[in-house]
């Protein structure tokens, strides 16, 4: 090979590169100019859309789009307290059965029509009259008697039983009657027809599966126009990819939109970036393990195949004592969480019960002593047997197969319980199958975990006798773990109708104490929310709660996205103007073209020489 040929090749390659760069440079200002017109808040997500029908949706992503698209009568404030929404004020009757709401005046739908009490009455009417919608929301809708609008500014709701907290915290998204009454069946997915018409701060206008969800701002929002012109949920398959995109400035917010959220290592990596703010604050989620203490139906028929030893509260207590929750928080969560006592996480300070005098301390020796005393003797292999030389204490431990954090917790627990002479065999099972087994009672120990809402009735209600199944086929899934305690039930009914917040909180805490001492469930930890955003492009996001609160995964209203403001405002300030770009591109093309011509000429001469 002669050196000329090499040089020629090199130069042609360079020319091609330069040309492409030139083309890109020409294209770039076009794209940039387009984005300058519209301020977009980009949020990373990987959750699929089940349906945009606000009565039917179950996924977290559609919870957020519903909150932004529609309004509720009463909003949930930044401290999870009821604040005026579409209703400016409300009055509960003496007997607690009739609620009268005054509807805000001058509110319009995103298509320009006026919003009146008739729309509200229509929406609540759907809950009462539309069979499918009624069934999906039966825990609330079952208590509704009538919904009427005597005039355009008044809405009257009648209940069968008093339920002040349900009325104030239940999210019923008010939908436009003039649009929805055109649907043959409002319970169908017809409400997916985009763009959605709502009265909230943003409305869904575009959805492409696994690509994006676009929400346009409502400039006439009654509480003030949002700072951004639009919100786009951008789909990322992997959380690591979303993290990289945030590092590169391609996405603005990464948080609970990604299933499972960020992990400590990702937060640590993002914290090193100058343009990223990380937020590692207490969350609403608990992780627990359910002990099969015997599954029963309402009429007392036992079913399932749980280990008999788990029916003994002493065994459950000993197992509880052998778990070092702080160690789990430190290793599994890298400190981003707190040890759990009971069902209401510490973020809901008014309802959270801190364990008081009953708090179980990590004490393997004490747990061993408890078991010795109760007559569980160790066999030759070191595993205890039931009193009287019965069954060995060997339990199955089911974990969600796709969750490596659970696998680590399982390993910790297995090692701790082994020190008690309890043999536990962990088994990874798909989530759906695990749920099937759990509701059939065919397990000994299993993982569970919930994101808790601000109204404690919901979570505590899964532990009442009233929700026990009537059949043994595992199809009725309202009871979390067959817990049934009449004292607990009495407290639960009392707190439902107690209008005084402090008195109610006391009742809720007492319920948690009972649950803790009976130990049908061992609550392991409350998981922090870990999220991050690009503070070079978004600012002013209100957190919930205001102190040390979260930006993503807010409840009742998306305060953060509504209050978010773009940084820098107009695109003119940042970067060179379009003219500079065009000049640069032209220069690049001229230079590249010259290089190309030169190479061609050289090639010619070289060929001739050869």
């Amino acid at each position: 090979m002669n050196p000329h040929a090499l040089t020629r090749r090199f130069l042609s390659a360079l020319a091609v590169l330069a040309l492409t760069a030139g083309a890109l440079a020409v294209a770039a200002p076009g794209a940039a100019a387009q984005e300058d017109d519209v301020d977009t808040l980009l949020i990373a997500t990987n959750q699929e859309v089940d349906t945009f029908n606000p009565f039917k949706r179950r996924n977290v992503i559609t919870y957020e789009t519903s909150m932004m698209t529609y309004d509720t009568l009463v909003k949930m404030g930044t401290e999870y307290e009821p604040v005026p929404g579409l209703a400016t004020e409300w009055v509960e009757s003496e007997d607690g059965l009739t609620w009268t709401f005054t509807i805000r005046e001058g509110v319009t739908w995103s298509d320009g029509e006026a919003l009146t009490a008739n729309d509200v009455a229509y929406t609540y009417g759907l809950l009462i009259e539309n069979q499918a919608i009624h069934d999906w929301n039966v825990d609330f809708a079952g208590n509704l008697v009538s919904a009427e609008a005597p005039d355009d500014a008044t809405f009257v709701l009648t209940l069968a039983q008093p339920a002040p907290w349900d009325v104030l915290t239940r999210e019923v998204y008010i939908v436009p009657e003039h649009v929805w009454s055109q649907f043959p069946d409002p319970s169908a997915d017809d409400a997916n027809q985009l763009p959605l018409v709502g009265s909230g701060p943003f409305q869904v206008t575009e959805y492409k599966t696994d690509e994006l969800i676009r929400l346009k701002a409502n400039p006439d929002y009654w509480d003030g126009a949002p700072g951004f012109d639009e919100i786009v949920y951008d789909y990322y398959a992997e959380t690591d990819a979303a993290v990289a995109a945030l590092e590169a400035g391609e996405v603005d917010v990464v948080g609970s939109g990604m299933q499972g959220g960020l992990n400590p290592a990702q937060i640590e990596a993002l914290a090193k970036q100058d343009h990223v703010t990380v937020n590692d604050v207490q969350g609403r989620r608990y992780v627990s393990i359910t002990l099969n203490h015997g599954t029963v139906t309402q009429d007392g028929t036992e079913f399932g195949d749980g280990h008999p030893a788990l029916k003994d509260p002493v065994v459950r207590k000993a197992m509880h004592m052998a778990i070092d929750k702080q160690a789990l928080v430190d290793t599994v969560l890298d400190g981003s969480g707190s040890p759990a006592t009971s069902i209401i996480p510490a973020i809901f300070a008014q309802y959270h019960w801190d364990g008081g005098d009953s708090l179980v301390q990590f004490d393997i020796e004490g747990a061993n002593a408890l078991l010795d005393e109760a007559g569980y003797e160790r066999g030759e292999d070191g595993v205890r047997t039931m009193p009287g030389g019965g069954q060995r204490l060997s339990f199955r431990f089911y974990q969600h197969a796709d969750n490596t954090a659970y696998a680590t917790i399982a390993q910790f627990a297995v090692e701790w319980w082994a020190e008690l002479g309890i043999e536990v065999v962990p088994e990874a099972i798909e989530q759906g199958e695990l749920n099937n087994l759990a509701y059939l009672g065919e397990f000994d120990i299993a993982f569970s975990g919930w994101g808790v809402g601000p109204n404690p009735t919901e979570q505590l209600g899964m532990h009442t006798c009233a929700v026990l199944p009537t059949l043994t086929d595992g199809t009725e899934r309202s009871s979390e773990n067959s817990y049934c305690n009449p004292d607990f039930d009495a407290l639960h009914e009392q707190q439902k109708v107690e209008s005084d917040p402090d008195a109610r909180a006391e009742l809720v805490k007492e319920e948690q104490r009972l649950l803790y001492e009976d130990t049908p469930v061992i609550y392991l930890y409350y998981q922090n929310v870990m999220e991050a955003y690009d503070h070079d492009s978004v600012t002013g996001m209100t957190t919930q709660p205001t102190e040390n609160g979260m930006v993503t995964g807010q409840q009742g209203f998306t305060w953060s996205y509504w209050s978010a403001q773009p940084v820098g405002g107009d695109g003119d300030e940042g970067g060179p103007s379009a003219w500079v770009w065009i000049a640069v591109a032209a220069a690049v093309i001229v230079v590249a073209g010259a290089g190309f011509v030169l190479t061609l000429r050289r090639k010619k001469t070289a060929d001739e020489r050869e």
Partner: protein
Amino acid sequence: MTAVPTSPRALRRARTRQSLARSWAAYRSQRAGMVGLVLLSAIVVLAVAAPLLVDQSQLSVTQATGGRMEPPSAEFPLGTDEVGRSILALTLWGSRLSLIIGLTATLAAILVGTAVGVTAGHVGGWYGWVALRVSDWFMVLPSLVVAIALLAVLGRSMGTTILVIALVSWSGTTRLVRAQTLTVQARPYLERARALGAGHWHQMTRHVLPNVLPLVLASATLLVPSAILMESSLAWLGLGDPNVVSWGSILNRASDNGAVSAHAWWYLLPPGLAILLVVLAFMMCGRALEAVFNPRLRGEGA
């Protein structure tokens, strides 16, 4: 030509010894094959001796002494994982499971493949046709997708992983073995055996199988690395049993715990390199074996 063996059994033994020696000489002449063999022996020795080299307590999460994802140090030559266990210990122990799964799955696949292949070639007829179509069917299915679907249905454990890998990889062997069976069948000595009254069973086990086996051995050696790779891919995708330590599951935990974002290369590289080495070793051995049994593949010599 010194002592001439007298009994037929001694004669056979001597012949076997001779042919083994010939094969070994042919194998030894290939440098890549020898390198692979040495590498493979080293890995197997390490895997077998893992309990002696590293105490099992090093896998315990409650007794872990290291910090969270510590970079390599004197105490932890390959750093630690998110609970503070030594990556070196995990990688060493992981080799056991990865090898066991790879070998068992291959063995199962080869057994099924050979049985179907020999019978399909020998018996032929409608049985051979059906057997071939079934193996074709398995061959055209995208193996990883099928494996994922099967694991989702069957649940995750070591047993199901082995079963699934065997199920998606037996068909190649069937094709190979059937082709070889057909060529062997055409040889005159089989006709002679038939004439002498040999039954199907005798023909298949005494005449066809011994002639097919070398080929099976070579293809098995090449099948092991793909089985190990598949186990690792499945485990990495989170479809393995998370309660056991294999190279794939270490990788899965690493990526789930954000080792990529944290730039914890010491968490990702050792199991990855280990997979690479084992696959490479098996490939080298397999290629060399192939060349031994198929002289046409033998190059100029390494």
